[in-house]
């Protein structure tokens, strides 16, 4: 089977999108965007400056008064148009995602679909943005709530879902009448460049959406700029907690920071093992383990050694057979990590696991690459047994294809183990017991629960949740939470003489 055609044919230097125009960054610092499977340069992206952010804020602030007066229905129609264009470009967007990130084409298409679903949900803004009222709160006095936009919002996006994550926020911000500035990850700016080309085609008024490429200088400028009302962030816990949430809040902004994870995948003795193993492969090794909903710790419940062995042997067999290669090859099941330094980081954890005394039952350092691509970013799936919760491989977010296997006597102990963690993004249970599932859902302290679901990724009309060290803020991305994040509730109490 051949490799699908690459939609990016030439290397170009990307530009910012400000006030409805493609403009060059004021910075002359340019970095390469590299395909992690082929190691070929795909584009060059500027490290924009605070001045570029200032220009985007100015454009967005100028556009805001008129945009907020545009009716919600008219705003939603821009999104319907965008949805049409996204469907037309579905395959190109997905292939770009694979080229810049490395994920498989199935995964990229899944990501594209998730992004489009957020546009669809946000297009329901005439209903979602309705307030509420009560007649006669006192005799002859009525009271009602109006949801109003606030101004300029910004997003600092991560590298692992270059297309989907910005769409957890941008469509809702724009639909509710705000204007927007996006900073894509400079590692993977091409999906968003494509999105902004489509946004340009949609014909939004200048300044409603803006994109500034760059790194830390752009982030700092966004966090400190007085003209920005709020910031959405997805990334690691140290950055989300100590930089984005702290600095953003100190500068009076609304902040939603969706952060790191160390998710448990619990297998009960009554689990249906064939689909459980298939789900585990997607959970632990999908997106090459680079997602905040990935399984990280496999927790096998029960004291039956035979059951434990059966589960783990099946996991090892399936992991060993994963086809690794360029994601545009349709037979490939796991792509590369996003960058060589990310691979080195994961390798460091594999070595640490061995040093700490865990047993490396499957060594991901030995692997074959379908198609003979350079191995700079590729890594096989690793499975560790005899892992204890005090080990770094059980505690830290590795963000790579590593499964750490732990055991628990019973469900109560499994829940205690999970709740002792500071990360609380997602936990999954595989069981045939409704009672066990309910206890798990009820008692586990984390934002997203999967019952026989390996990746508990909320659909666009639900919030993408997260708790404890996995989320900082009060309102999440997606759905009604996003609508509330991007609006203020104004209360009017009224009587007439």
């Amino acid at each position, binding site marked *: *089977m051949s490799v699908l055609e690459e939609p990016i044919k030439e290397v170009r230097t990307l530009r910012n999108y400000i006030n409805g125009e493609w403009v060059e960054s004021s910075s002359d610092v340019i970095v390469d965007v590299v395909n992690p499977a082929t190691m070929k340069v795909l584009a060059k992206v500027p490290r924009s400056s605070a001045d570029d952010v200032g220009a985007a804020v100015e454009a967005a602030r100028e556009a805001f008064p008129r945009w907020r007066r545009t009716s919600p229905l008219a705003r939603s129609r821009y999104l319907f148009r965008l949805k049409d264009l996204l469907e037309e470009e*579905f395959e190109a967007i997905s292939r770009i995602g694979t080229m810049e990130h490395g994920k*498989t*084409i*199935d*995964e990229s*298409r*899944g*990501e594209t*679909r*998730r992004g489009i679903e957020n546009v669809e949900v946000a297009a329901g803004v005439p209903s979602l943005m309705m307030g509420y009222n009560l007649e006669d709160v006192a005799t002859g006095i009525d009271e009602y709530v109006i949801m109003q936009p606030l101004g300029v919002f910004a997003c600092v996006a991560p590298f692992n*879902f270059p297309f*989907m994550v910005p769409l957890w926020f941008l469509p809702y911000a724009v639909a509710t009448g705000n204007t927007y500035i996006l900073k894509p990850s400079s590692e993977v700016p091409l999906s968003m460049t494509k999105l902004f080309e489509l946004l340009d085609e949609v014909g939004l008024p200048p300044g409603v959406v803006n994109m500034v490429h760059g790194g830390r200088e752009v982030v700092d400028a966004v966090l400190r700029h007085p003209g920005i009302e709020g910031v959405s962030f997805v990334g690691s816990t140290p950055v989300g907690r100590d930089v984005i949430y702290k600095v953003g809040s100190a500068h009076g902004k609304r902040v939603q920071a969706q952060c790191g994870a160390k998710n448990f995948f619990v297998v009960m003795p009554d689990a249906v093992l*064939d*689909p459980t193993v*298939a*789900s585990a*492969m*997607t959970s632990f090794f*999908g*997106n090459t383990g680079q*997602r905040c*909903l990935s399984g990280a710790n496999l927790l096998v419940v029960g004291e039956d050694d035979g059951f434990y062995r059966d589960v783990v042997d099946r996991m090892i067999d*399936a992991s060993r057979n994963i*086809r690794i290669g360029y994601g545009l090859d*349709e*037979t*490939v*099941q*796991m792509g590369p990590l996003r960058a060589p330094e990310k691979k080195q980081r994961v390798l460091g954890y594999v070595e640490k696991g061995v040093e700490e005394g865990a047993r490396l039952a499957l060594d991901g350092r030995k692997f074959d690459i379908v198609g003979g691509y350079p191995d700079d970013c590729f890594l096989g799936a690793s499975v560790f047994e005899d892992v204890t919760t005090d080990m770094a491989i059980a505690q830290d977010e590795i963000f790579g294809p590593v499964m750490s296997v732990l055991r628990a006597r019973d469900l109560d102990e499994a829940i205690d183990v999970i709740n002792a963690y500071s990360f609380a993004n997602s936990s999954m249970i595989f069981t045939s017991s409704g009672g066990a599932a309910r206890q798990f859902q009820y008692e586990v302290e984390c934002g997203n629960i999967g019952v026989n*679901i*390996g*990746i*508990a*990724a909320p*659909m666009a009309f639900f919030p993408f949740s997260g708790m404890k060290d996995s989320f900082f803020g009060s309102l999440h991305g997606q759905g009604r939470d996003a609508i509330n994040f991007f609006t203020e509730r104004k209360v009017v109490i009224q009587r007439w003489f």
Partner: protein
Amino acid sequence: MLNTASAIISFYERMEDQIAAFYDALARRYPTGREAFAALSKESGRHKEMVVRAYREVITDAIEAGFSFTGLDEADYRIDTELKEGLSLRDALEKALAVEESSRRFCSDASESSRALLADITHAFGWVAKRKANRIERLKSLKEETS
């Protein structure tokens, strides 16, 4: 090797395109069955759209698209749509029956092998497999009429 949802769908798309082109060619060559062949070609397009939409519209980053198919071998489902000069209508219909049976078997196997994890794709392939069975009956009737 057809081991991922993408590989399965691509293979199916190519197969259905080949089948549609085959019926278009039959419609051009055999006036007796022109309407029936044209209808079969059109249906092939609809079947393809049904399956591709089921894939494109329900796929998410979270489902087990890369690990749901236990591995079908495309060699097991190859179809021969070559129309040699002078082929009789009866022989062409025989060929069409073989093509339909092979594609029905593929759809049925794809449906079965993804049953646990990809419900919508399973359903779409199952639906097309049933339609293919109907097409086989229609072709058999056509063959009887021509004899």
